[in-house]
């Protein structure tokens, strides 16, 4: 809870600081950016509402055991590939993604596979891409970014295999 509060303080502190800079550039600059930001907020709200309120249902119907079963310790590169696909297919927010990784680790999942899973989830989780990235970014950027990111869960797993777990 305190971490969330700290993040909120930092967030609104940054807004206030940048707002002050904009205000010093002159009232029209400040008012224009305030209006632009508010319009963006109003336009984005329906999608955020749908995604956030609906995500609980999507998470409730995807059985998490299916995902954890793919992350076995001796699953090798096939396991890394499955972990990458699972990371992208994991619904819901960070609680679900990290909890699945934690369960996989406790159930004896291989650390490189779990690393690949967490990295793939961070890079590709479909719900975040559809709900947040596509509404805010140019679509061409999103697809380009996702395509370019494909090698990195594998690279992370390879690094994990080489350096081992401390």
């Amino acid at each position, binding site marked *: 809870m305190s971490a969330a509060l700290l993040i909120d303080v930092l967030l609104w502190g940054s807004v206030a600081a940048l707002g002050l800079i904009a205000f010093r550039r002159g009232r029209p600059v400040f008012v224009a950016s305030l209006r*632009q*930001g*508010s319009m963006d907020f109003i336009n984005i709200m329906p999608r955020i509402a749908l995604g956030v309120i609906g995500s609980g249902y999507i998470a409730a119907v995807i059985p998490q055991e299916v995902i954890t079963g793919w992350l076995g310790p001796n699953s090798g590169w096939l396991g890394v590939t499955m972990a990458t696909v699972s990371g992208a297919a994991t619904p819901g927010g960070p609680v679900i993604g990290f909890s699945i990784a934690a369960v996989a680790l406790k159930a004896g999942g291989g650390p490189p596979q779990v690393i690949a899973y967490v990295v793939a989830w961070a*890079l590709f989780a479909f719900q975040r891409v559809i709900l947040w990235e596509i509404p805010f970014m140019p679509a061409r950027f999103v697809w380009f970014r996702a395509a370019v990111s494909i090698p990195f869960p594998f690279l992370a797993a390879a690094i994990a295999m080489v350096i081992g*777990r401390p």
Partner: protein
Amino acid sequence: MKDPAPAEDADAEPRPGHIRKPVGWSTVTIAVLVAVSAALVWHRDGISGVTEILTDDLTLFGGIVPRVLAGCLLGAFIAEILPHEKVSRSLGPESGLKGLVIGTAFGAILPGGPFTAYPVASALLAVGADFGATIAMVVSWTLIGYGRAVAWEIPILGADFTLWRIAISLPLPVLAGALGRFIYVRLYPKQDEAES
């Protein structure tokens, strides 16, 4: 070198930093997914299962709304006050490794969640950052940003695993940005010549 426009403006894409219509194919996809899932939950757990999830998610949503507003304002202020020429020099196509490192550092220190990262990334694109530096920023935010690590990953996965995971992830944003830049100039060579 007078106010170089970002390469993305050359085609029919909506201007970065300007959010598109509220209803599109992605919204429809999510809506269908949510409707089907809610129906499955109803079938499995009855109406109490449906309302329980709804209550939880409404609480979550209530907490997120002000943060989304903060993110949108942050993006708008950044787009307005950052000098385009400076941004395209330090984060543009010619910014080299330094631009990728700046993008990575920026993504790592950015406060907030997706509600800040994407509006801010979009604003950077609009004021002259190239795809490479913006990819470095987005990937850095998602992989080594402290917000999610502190709020969720450490409590759930433990500090040891999280730090190990972050250490392994450290080189990835710069590599992703470099790969992005490498592919971008080969995919859209003409555009770059026309722009410079």
